């Protein structure tokens, strides 16, 4: 069994300082502008280090106490806090919603209410909340199969997501999509894709539409698209092809890599020649940023900058969020391969606990307020399960309904009429 060369304390402190520097010193647009600057700086650091430190420097997703310390220091020394109380509570509520929902999913799965492949997001809430809570309703989000929480953060009601998971007709996709295909036209969630990398071109297309509206149709459009995907996807051709096109045409898109170090059982370090994904941005002409994905405030800062860039028409950004999933790849994954020490380590960096601590320490909220939010979310989740339970399963006539936007696509039958005009067709008993 391969063990990760993963020793938090051996990390070259200068290296992590560089990284945390890049995360914390977000003063304005200029910090992203010279992506080459970032790249060069770190490259020169690399060459100066000895092979030993370089090996450990190559280990990407490692927290160091330096980072934690820095965070505490920065939070107490900053004149202005990173968030207001309202914002803090919104972030907290969103993360709790994500966590509670996923926990309920696990319960429901083991009770036989949902089936198939269900991929849970526990531990990664900071990324979803940090990014999506900065978006408007018209902005688009594209995700992968680990998409429940992205949909929830974007505003899709928990009822609709739970119903979809139960396969009921009241689900956001009428029960036709399932766990891996969450779509919402109202909230501009463009999926939910089962194959990794498949959603990235779709996100690029949504960003293209935004640019088209602005430049061809002369509309006042500053809609942004976020594409979420994992570390495994970053070795896939579609990723690179889209980085190229997005940078080439300066599309308003942010590529968010949720690097949780594992692609089912394949460690990121075993599958990637250069595990530092953020570096691949500058190779295509866009800034690459690495951020601690277990810290919602850091993610939010980086997100603000990246989304701002996109809105201003300055082009795409590649953001690598170092994060971790507390559960297995899916509910079918026994999760025996990962080192328990690694899991324990990341458990101490639970994003919800960190945010709670921040809120308390900076007197933004007290125990009672947070408990009230916990209770509210519990009720929402309970309600969503009840709603899903009571919702009807799809009827037979739903089978053929959404195959074509224009049902004439089913063709002309032997009697000369369009198939869809056949009354038996809607009953699902007609032969197609």
């Amino acid at each position: 069994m391969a063990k990760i060369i993963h020793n938090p304390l051996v990390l070259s402190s200068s290296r992590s300082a560089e990284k945390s520097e890049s995360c914390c010193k977000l003063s304005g647009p200029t910090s992203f502008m010279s992506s080459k600057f970032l790249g060069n700086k770190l490259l020169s650091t690399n060459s100066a280090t000895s092979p030993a430190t370089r090996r450990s420097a190559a280990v990407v997703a490692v927290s160091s106490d330096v980072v934690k310390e820095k965070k505490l220091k920065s939070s107490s020394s900053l004149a202005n806090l990173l968030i207001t109380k309202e914002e803090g509570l919104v972030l907290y509520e969103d993360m709790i919603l994500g966590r509670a929902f996923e926990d309920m999913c696990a319960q429901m799965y083991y009770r036989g209410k949902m089936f198939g492949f269900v991929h849970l997001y526990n531990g990664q809430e900071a990324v979803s909340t940090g990014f999506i809570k900065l978006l408007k309703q018209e902005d688009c989000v594209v995700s992968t199969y680990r998409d429940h929480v992205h949909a929830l953060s974007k505003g899709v009601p928990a009822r609709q997501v739970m119903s979809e998971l139960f396969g009921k007709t009241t689900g956001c996709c009428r029960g036709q999509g399932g766990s891996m295909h969450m779509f919402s036209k109202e909230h501009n969630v463009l999926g939910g894709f089962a194959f990794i990398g498949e959603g990235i071109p779709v996100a690029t297309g949504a960003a293209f539409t935004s640019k088209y509206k602005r430049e061809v149709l002369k509309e006042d459009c500053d809609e942004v698209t976020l594409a979420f995907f994992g570390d495994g996807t970053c070795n896939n051709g579609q990723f690179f092809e889209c980085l190229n096109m997005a940078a080439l045409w300066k599309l308003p898109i942010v590529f968010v890599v949720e690097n949780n170090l594992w692609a089912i059982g394949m460690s990121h370090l075993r599958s990637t020649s250069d595990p530092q994904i953020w570096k691949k941005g500058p190779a295509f002409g866009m800034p690459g940023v690495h951020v601690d994905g277990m810290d919602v405030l850091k993610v939010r800062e980086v997100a603000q900058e990246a989304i701002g860039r996109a809105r201003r028409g300055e082009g795409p950004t590649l953001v690598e969020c170092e994060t971790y999933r507390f559960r297995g790849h899916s509910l079918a994954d026994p999760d025996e391969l990962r080192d328990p020490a690694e899991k324990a380590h990341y458990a101490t960096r639970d994003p919800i606990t960190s945010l709670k601590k921040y809120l308390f320490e900076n007197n933004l909220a007290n125990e009672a307020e947070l408990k009230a939010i916990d209770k509210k979310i519990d009720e929402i989740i309970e309600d969503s399960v009840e709603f899903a339970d009571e919702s009807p399963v799809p009827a037979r006539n739903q089978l053929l309904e959404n195959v074509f936007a224009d049902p004439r696509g089913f063709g002309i039958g032997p009697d000369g009429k369009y198939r869809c005009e056949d009354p038996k067709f809607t009953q699902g008993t007609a032969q197609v």
Partner: protein
Amino acid sequence: MAAAILHGVGATTPLSSVKYNNSRRSLPGSGITERKRASFVIQCYGSLSSGLNIGINRAVKLSTNAVATKQDSVTASTPSKPGHELLLFEALREGLEEEMERDPWVCVMGEDVGHYGGSYKVTKGLADKYGDLRVLDTPIAENSFTGMGIGAAMTGLRPIVEGMNMGFLLLAFNQISNNCGMLHYTSGGQFKIPIVIRGPGGVGRQLGAEHSQRLESYFQSIPGIQMVACSTPYNAKGLMKAAIRSDNPVILFEHVLLYNLKERIPDEEYVLSLEESEMVRTGDHVTILTYSRMRYHVMQAAKTLVNKGYDPEVIDIRSLKPFDLHTIGNSVKKTHRVVIVEECMRTGGIGASLTASINEHFHDYLDAPIVCLSSQDVPTPYAGTLEDWTVVQPAQIVAAVEQLCR
């Protein structure tokens, strides 16, 4: 993969033995219809050959006065409007341009569609007129720019994605299969994907195996898409417009050898139906179903057949998915014999599906098993002679009909 694509398409002529011209002798009593403009008119008066076996029940009664094309008075003609003459690729461009003019959300993306004007000149001049964003030159990344087209379609645009050669779309199979066809359904009907994917395919003039592919057989199982194949300038323009206006994802198959076909098409605007097939020649003895380039081999064979006294009914099915079972069915009910002539490979092609479909629906009307003439299950060889033998030639069609009508 964007290897030696010839822009010198003018060098190839689809059929050496068929002349397309405007002169036609009108038959008494029938007007020249719009739809018939694509077909050529040859009048011949054949005589019965004495060796025919007329005694057997299933034998076909041969006519003494067959004509290669018959004008049917389906639609009223407007002989006062002159129409204009153009080549097939120009007809495609005309349709495309009209739709781009009509709807600002229509855009084009593909390799070399912009500044280069398209490898077969279908998009020539459009980038100058509409700009580099509306006629987008993409990098060589089929899967991704097809996916980009799909994402754009989901968010309101109506893109036309060009595959420089249909074969290149094999790289886009992931997006075409998973996203293009499925997302409308998987999203519960929330997102429509009004994309048109088009490009030249089929066996050309010694283009080699990889540039001579027939992707209609690979795509036909994908649920949620429609496939059409154009074969004349008239239907090329009509189908292009229909495909762009359709809210469904449509794959429009063009053929490398047909781009220089010339025809006179109407001046006024017209849009054809994506689901209908085209009656090329009515007849009584046998139904020949075909599409794209094979239509011309069939018509050439029809000439010979008519000389021999047969009366074939030729239907260009045009809609490869779904099949127009009405026109096809009516024909089968009339002639009771079917020959399918296609360019797909024997295994798993459009002909195979069509055979199954006709057997399923019209079995009772058939007097003989369906004959399906397809290309050989062989990667298209480079050598000219070998290449000729991989596809169906008119002589084979004649032989098959004679055999069937015995």
